[in-house]
């Protein structure tokens, strides 16, 4: 075995690959070979580092130099300068936006300081397509130890003691779910991994499957042993090709090593995993709909009970857990329930992975202990709001969640505190909005999504959400009246109370929570026909300030519809009946004389 003196870790997650990280790895390898360093330096393609904002990311080991926004052309410099001459390539180092200083070690970056990585422990560390690296990190030893030394009941007790709750959104205690499925008597049971990640902006499950697929396979086998199942199914959307590819590689390697299949660890326990593809429907993240989809039926939910733990896939007891939940399981067995319990809050132990997106400086994937405040996540780790703008709100829980405002910034995030403040954990998407975002439009965006994704089975969701959307559209077009606000609220509450599944029961949340938190914005739309954030086109008016206008005629010349008139060196005027609100004049004006009202 070659003894490498340097490892170069190149992020091969979907985000970094989209910005040519594969070409970086190829060029690095070529340059290493050209300089006869092939026995000294190893190039490793890893999973996501999380710092997607500055991708592609390349990390040098052992000196832990963290290079950001690397291009394929930089590869040669990294080899010649960093490896051969021992000089850091300054232009590729991360620059702290506040101190303007270069930070070479990722441990000193604010983005990583407050993170604790359990579910993401191997992402950005090992090569996901190499089972050996997973085994070297104690992979499959949790499974081995359980099969060797523990009864299913005592293994379930450890999960119960750890306080682990479902990371897919609902927060149902995982140990309890396993226990219920174990107690359901049947000749055949199933373990299902829900990898149908549908929230707009959430990508933690994809990143775990891409960066550490074996941890999910190991956990599924543990679950199988605990509940008494010999079959596992991973339901994943076909639009995750890289995750599917790595899962397939991982399943084959695990079978080859005898870690999946018959008589695992000589214990007599048999377990194998199959992949099932989804077409990317949001409702199929709901467990009953997911099961129907796997059975080849329409992806529609059914009323619970019966719960899948009693009657699920093919009518047999089925335990459904989400990817991130599974990724926590091996770590809990390796380090103990008490260790897990002391991380996080009393009722929500452990960590949670969040996908930070929107108007935040450091877009990316982070994992923090439960109980971390929104302020720490958005300002310390996220690096604050882009372009120095003012924070306005953050949407948690995707289309099922709600928005939280400045007043909630010091709220410690856990399942219960989020629900108490009108939102929810969801799968962990966090979309940050600044002062330029119109909350009515935001609500409309999410409703547009749910209308599109509603399966159409129950009336409240199919028709109710459509009507909600139409009301919002009417308001953003400036045609709403005060009665519409009452209608919005009443209809929203009726849908919540009467819809069949989780999708419909939560779809009005974005509307209701924005109405609660930003009533003045809704009122401005209906009473004054104004959009305070200046986002709703129909309500915008471009105006020229006669005081600032110098009459340079530039705006009149760029206007595509000739809506601007005025004599040279005299203030100009925009004819709002012709104006198409394209904003070209405002962009061109050198004197800041044009504004939106």
């Amino acid at each position, binding site marked *: 075995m070659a003894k490498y003196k340097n490892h170069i870790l190149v992020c091969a997650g979907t985000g970094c690959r989209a910005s040519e990280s594969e070409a970086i790895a190829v060029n690095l390898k070529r340059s290493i070979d050209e300089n006869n360093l092939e026995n000294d330096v190893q190039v490793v393609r890893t999973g996501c580092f999380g710092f997607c904002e500055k991708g592609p990311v390349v990390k040098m080991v052992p000196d832990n130099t963290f290079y950001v926004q690397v291009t394929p052309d930089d590869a040669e410099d990294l080899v010649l300068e960093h490896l051969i001459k021992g000089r850091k390539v300054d232009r590729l180092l991360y620059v702290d936006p506040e101190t303007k200083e270069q930070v070479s070690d990722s441990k000193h970056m604010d983005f990583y300081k407050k993170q604790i990585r359990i579910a993401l422990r191997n992402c950005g560390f090992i090569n996901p397509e190499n089972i050996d690296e997973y085994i070297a990190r104690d992979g499959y030893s949790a499974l081995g130890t359980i*099969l060797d030394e523990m009864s299913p009941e005592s293994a379930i007790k450890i999960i119960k003691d750890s306080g682990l709750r479902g990371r897919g959104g609902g927060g149902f205690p995982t140990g309890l779910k396993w226990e219920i499925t174990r107690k359901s008597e049947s000749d055949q049971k199933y373990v299902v991994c829900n990898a149908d990640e549908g929230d707009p902006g959430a990508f933690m499950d994809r990143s775990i499957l891409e960066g550490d697929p074996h941890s999910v396979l190991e956990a599924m086998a543990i679950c199988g042993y605990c509940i008494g199942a010999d079959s596992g199914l991973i339901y994943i959307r076909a639009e995750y090709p890289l995750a599917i590819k790595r899962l397939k590689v991982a399943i084959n390697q695990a079978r080859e*090593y005898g870690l999946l299949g018959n008589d695992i660890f000589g214990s007599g326990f048999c377990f194998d995993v199959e992949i099932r593809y989804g077409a990317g429907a949001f409702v199929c993240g709901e467990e009953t709909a997911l099961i129907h989809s796997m059975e080849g039926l329409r992806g529609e939910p059914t009323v619970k009970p019966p719960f899948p733990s009693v009657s699920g896939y093919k009518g047999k007891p089925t335990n459904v857990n989400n990817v991130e939940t599974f990724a926590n399981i091996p770590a809990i067995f390796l380090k103990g329930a008490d260790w897990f319990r002391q991380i996080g809050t009393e009722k929500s132990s452990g960590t949670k992975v969040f996908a930070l997106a929107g108007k935040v400086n450091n877009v990316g994937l982070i994992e923090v202990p439960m109980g971390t405040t929104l302020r720490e996540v958005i300002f310390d780790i996220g690096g604050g709001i882009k372009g120095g703008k003012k924070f306005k709100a953050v949407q948690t829980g995707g289309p099922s969640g709600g928005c939280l405002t400045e007043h909630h910034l010091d709220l410690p995030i856990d399942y219960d505190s989020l629900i108490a403040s009108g939102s929810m954990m969801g799968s962990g998407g966090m979309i940050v909005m600044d002062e330029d975002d119109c909350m009515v439009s935001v609500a409309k965006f999410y409703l547009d999504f749910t209308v599109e994704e509603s399966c159409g089975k129950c009336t409240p969701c199919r028709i109710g959400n459509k009507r909600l959307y139409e009301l919002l559209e009417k308001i953003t077009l400036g045609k709403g009246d005060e009665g519409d606000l009452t209608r919005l609220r009443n209809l929203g509450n009726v849908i919540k109370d009467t819809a069949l599944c989780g999708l419909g029961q939560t779809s009005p949340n974005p509307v209701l929570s924005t109405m609660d938190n930003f009533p003045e914005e809704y009122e401005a739309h209906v009473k004054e026909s104004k959009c305070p954030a200046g986002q709703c086109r129909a309500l915008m008016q471009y105006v020229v300030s006669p005081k600032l206008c110098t009459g340079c005629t530039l705006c009149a010349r760029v206007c595509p519809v000739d809506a601007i008139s005025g004599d040279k060196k005299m203030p100009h005027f925009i004819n709002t009946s012709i104006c198409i609100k394209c904003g070209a004049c405002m962009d061109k004006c050198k004197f800041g004389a044009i504004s939106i009202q």
Partner: protein
Amino acid sequence: MSKVKNLQDLKKMRDELKGKINLREKSDHPESMVQIKVSMATCGIASGARETMNYMIDELDSQAIDAVVTQTGCMGYCYAEPTIEVTMPGEKPLVFGNVNTKKASEIIEKYIKNGELVDGIIPDSYETIDGK
């Protein structure tokens, strides 16, 4: 590779494979082990810094001493190349000059293993930004 037949197989396999990622594990917690920086600028390399570095990596590894050996740029002591900087856990860094493989062996045997000082220490007259 053969199949994993039991837990002992897996443990054995894990211990063998650990070496493959050991470098990465170590680099995550450099403060808990001996850190050695080898000055690898043109003058250092010309004076044999690469041999020194390779020797130290192999020697520390074969003696199973937890250490991170990294290369760095010119430290400025061109008269005393190859130079290395050794930081023992919890102690201040010490710079040694004229470190050929013989000297390197002495540093490992005396300073790193027993904490005895050896000749060739260059008094530090600089601050690094790492310390700030």
